[in-house]
């Protein structure tokens, strides 16, 4: 059991690491300019400086994939960042004052936001502020706030009844101090797990939004848009859909495996059972 | 129903988890109506011994040797051949009453289930379930039957478990620390009840006082082996194995009713017991002789020790 869990963790970490490395590398080097239209290379077969061939605009697929990794991470980081920055403090406040009116208010608002699924928010935000990567990410981020708030609240509730927190409270430490010194470090592991899973969901959401035309703007390479653009050539040049499809699947798989692996690794309850 | 003259005979029972021997060559018999205690510290293998008799060992843990109840084999047969014995001929009450009942099912239904499983018609089982609850001295048994487990206290739930165990009038009842999780006052009532209602009993505990109050005979386990066995009075007044001696000596220092005190040193974890006499690394009387495993010898009062106390 332990061996297999580690395998998942390692595989997930490796896939995520690959995405990160590719994204970082794309800042320094890509085989070609990923947005350069070159009619002479239209639908070029793989080979000779174009490892994965070129699309109908003659743009190098490999370079686009590399820069697309950047977009993918950008989407995930911003969406998860917004969700965590807003959700975690709210969840902690709710968890530390479980009977207060503030806690009640936070959880009610949370439930309300929860009623607006990410895609709906993205379409609404897109309608008001115009479609684009940032709008989409903010929408996904806001829609993910409740998930973080819930996890943070549940974990905080558990931490608040532990001996060390009770001792700190008895010693007269103020709540913010307890939150920073005791609660945050102890709910961190659950939040990391949630972040990893939310990251995967954000990647899928970006792909769906790109498919609907609410996602990343052209010509910025994005795996979701590459997939959407490759549709008309699915019959004749399936490789154009294959690569971005594979990239999305592997990235999502990576973040999910990482999340699951971390959960098993960090969750003391599961460890005890093993 | 059950055969009234079925005797439990266990011979050479060995329990393994992969290559680890957790219980080794355990042999004993329990005659009809006899009440036998099985004591030892945690990790001694007493619970595994009980579970192997029920065929309830965890995954990847296997038992070998023989255990027969009357003429039926309990060990080394596939589950579908022993499962009709469980709950009918042998029953078991577990240590933790809080989690042993299905939280989503009414108590009465859980008691009735054990009867319908073994052929009692549904309506009859339902009536008898209430009777069983009454028999384990639950007040207002009709109401209890309609309750869900979370509405009952720990002691009440353990009584329900006992009702389930006794519902089919089994020939043998196995209790695995049935009172450990209960309040002291509740413990006492529970023990009296078990002593009163049990047919033949295998009672597992690490509490010497409890054994003394319930059982006639005792088996002392250490390191996966039975190191001493015999009538309670003899074993407790004149322990022969050095481990039993240590146990008793330690328990005398504390007031009656407290838990088994540990012997000097600590119990090694599974697989870390020494060869030969499993107790020799903690035994003040150990000599090189002890590197050879002693056999359990003696009639009535038996023990496995090269240097027994007198």
């Amino acid at each position, binding site marked *: 059991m332990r061996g297999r869990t580690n395998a998942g963790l390692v595989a997930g970490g490796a896939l995520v690491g690959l995405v990160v490395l590719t994204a970082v590398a794309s800042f320094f080097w890509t085989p070609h300019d990923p*947005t350069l*239209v070159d009619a002479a290379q239209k639908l070029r077969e793989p080979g000779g400086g174009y490892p994965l061939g070129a699309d109908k605009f003659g743009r190098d697929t490999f370079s686009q994939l590399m820069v697309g990794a950047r977009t993918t991470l950008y989407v995930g980081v911003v969406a998860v960042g917004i969700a965590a920055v807003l959700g975690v403090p709210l969840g902690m406040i709710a968890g530390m004052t479980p009977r207060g009116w503030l806690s009640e208010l936070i959880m009610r608002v949370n439930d309300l936001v929860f009623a607006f699924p990410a895609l709906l928010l993205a379409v609404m935000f897109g309608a008001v502020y115009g479609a684009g990567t940032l709008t989409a990410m903010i929408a996904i981020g806001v829609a993910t706030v409740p998930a973080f708030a819930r996890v943070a609240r549940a974990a905080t509730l558990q931490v608040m009844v532990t001996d060390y927190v009770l001792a700190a409270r008895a010693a007269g430490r103020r709540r913010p101090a307890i939150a920073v010194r005791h609660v945050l470090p102890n709910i961190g592991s659950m939040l990391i797990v949630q972040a990893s899973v939310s990251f995967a969901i954000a990647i899928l959401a970006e792909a769906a939004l790109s498919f609907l035309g609410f996602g990343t*703007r052209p*010509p910025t390479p994005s795996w979701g848009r590459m997939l959407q653009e490759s*549709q*008309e050539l699915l019959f004749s040049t399936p490789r154009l859909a294959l690569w971005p499809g594979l990239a999305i699947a592997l990235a999502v798989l990576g973040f999910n495996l990482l999340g699951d692996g971390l959960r098993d690794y960090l969750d003391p309850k599961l460890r005890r059972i093993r | 129903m059950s055969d009234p003259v079925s005797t439990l005979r266990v011979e050479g029972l060995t329990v393994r988890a992969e290559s680890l021997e957790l219980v080794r060559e355990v042999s004993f018999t329990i005659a009809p109506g006899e009440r036998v205690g099985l004591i030892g510290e945690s990790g001694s293998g007493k619970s595994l011994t009980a579970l192997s008799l029920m065929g309830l060992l965890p995954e990847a843990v296997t038992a070998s040797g023989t255990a027969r109840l009357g003429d039926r084999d309990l060990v080394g047969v596939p589950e579908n051949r022993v499962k009709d014995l469980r709950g009918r001929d042998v029953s078991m009450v577990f240590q933790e009453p809080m989690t042993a009942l299905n939280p989503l099912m009414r108590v009465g239904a859980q008691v009735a289930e054990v009867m319908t499983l073994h052929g009692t018609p549904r309506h009859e089982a339902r009536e008898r379930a209430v009777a069983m609850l009454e028999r384990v001295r639950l007040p207002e048994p009709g109401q209890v039957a309609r309750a869900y487990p979370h509405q009952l206290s720990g002691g009440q739930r353990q009584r329900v478990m006992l009702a389930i165990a006794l519902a089919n009038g089994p020939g043998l009842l196995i209790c695995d620390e049935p009172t450990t999780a209960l309040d002291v006052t509740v413990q006492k009532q529970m023990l009296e009840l078990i002593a009163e209602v049990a047919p033949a009993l295998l009672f597992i505990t690490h509490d010497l006082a409890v054994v003394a109050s319930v059982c006639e005979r005792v088996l002392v386990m250490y390191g996966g082996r039975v190191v001493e066995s015999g009538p309670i009075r003899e074993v407790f007044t004149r322990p022969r194995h050095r481990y039993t001696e240590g146990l008793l000596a330690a328990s005398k220092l504390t007031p009656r009713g407290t838990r088994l005190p540990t012997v000097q040193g600590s119990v090694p974890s599974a697989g870390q017991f020494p060869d030969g006499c499993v107790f020799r690394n903690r035994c003040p009387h150990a000599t090189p002789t002890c590197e050879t495993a002693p056999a359990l010898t003696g009639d009535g009062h038996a023990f496995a020790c090269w240097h027994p106390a007198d």
Partner: protein
Amino acid sequence: MRRIGIWIAVGGLLLATAACGGGDSGGSASGTPKAQSLAVGFVAEPANLDFTSTEGAAIPQALLVNVYEGLVKLDQAGEIVPLLAEKWEVSDDRKTYTFKLRENVKFSSGAPFTADDVVFSLDRVKSDWKLKIKSQLDVVDKVEKKDDSTAVITLKQPSNGFLYSMATRLGAMFSRTGVSDLANKPVGTGPYVLGSWRRGDSIQLDANPSYWGTKPPLSSITLKYFKDATAMNNALLTGGIDVISSVQAPESLQQFADPNRFEVIEGTTNGEVVLSMNNGRPPFNDKKARQAVRHAIDHKALLDTAWAGRGGLIGSMVPPTDPWYEDRTGDYPYDPAKAKQLLGGKTYNVKMRIPNLPYAVASAQVVKSQLAQVGITAEIEPLEFPARWLDQVFTKGDYDLSIINHVEPRDMGIFADKSYYFGYDNPEFGKLLASADQGTEQEQTDDLKQAAKLLSDDAAADWLFLFPNLIVAKKGVTGLPENAISESFDFTALAKQ
């Protein structure tokens, strides 16, 4: 009761699904529509059916000629031919048109069609229509009924464009009793009537049983709407539709290469895909900057990559099917060095706000890449079409570059209106157009050639390509309009062998 938990319920549902699925796939050959009807795939679904108050091509495409008829219509060669008017006479001063109407024409409501309806319909353009193009009929002075079957239209001054406008939606004939709910219940004299409208999916047109002319060969036509080009292709491949009215993913045409199954028709349209430049504000209020853009774009490469090489290249706002067409593609050859020189070494950041339509999104990426080579950085911003694009670009003029297919026929006049979103303001151009409209046929042709040249020289915009009319049909479908000459998709002759 509790025993029948959700698991059992779920199991039951499963079985039901499986059973239905299994049972059905046996008799699955019924996918093709009935012989008497055809399904045609379109891209844009009308929001409503009132083309007197709603812009856009979707409504006239479905209804004009098919449900609503005018006095005249355009045939496939682009000639004006009689429709509800049997014939017409033009006075010597070219200001009075006398239309002799067909007898026994009835609206689908049963009301007879008379000269009163002509007066009503044309007056209504002035009083009730909410579209900009209604100004094309500003030239009409008065409309009068002579008798039930004769209508007389008097113009303020001679106009070459008048009769042509009468062939567009502006000339559509409405019943005096049939305009109460134009958005949902069209009443016309055409060969088809509105059968049903399943919003978001399809409009069904049924043959008009009391049609005055040759009865249409089909009993019904379904116009199915697809927002996704691939979905439309798949529908034709799998028999869900019989015709793709306009291919939106030209790269995918090779799927239909099998001549035993499909027929690919490539005709022309009046659609000029225009790279509009905001003449009204920097940087493109500077003619040199506009000219630089025209030199910076490799139109051949653009057409090859963005639209699979389908369509033609043009250099001004005139399609080759118009009599005053001249090849102006050589005016601004692809010359990045020249472009840089025109820009004087300066670089610019501009907003390219485009509709989120396939041709625009594809073309924009090429334009952006090519402009980047000469120092113009264009940020592409796709806007939902129509609403957001109309609002920001068309109405407010808040853009630097845009790309849109101007599909209206003979629409060079839009450049004459300086309030139009191009912001192009050259009085010379307006004079040429006015003189063309009033002059003789030859004068008209000469003036318009001049005007087109002026537009091109001024680089009022750039013309990326001429949108092709790409139709794919199942083998055996006949009577398809090869060229998209007018606003309407003419179903009159559509049939299936």
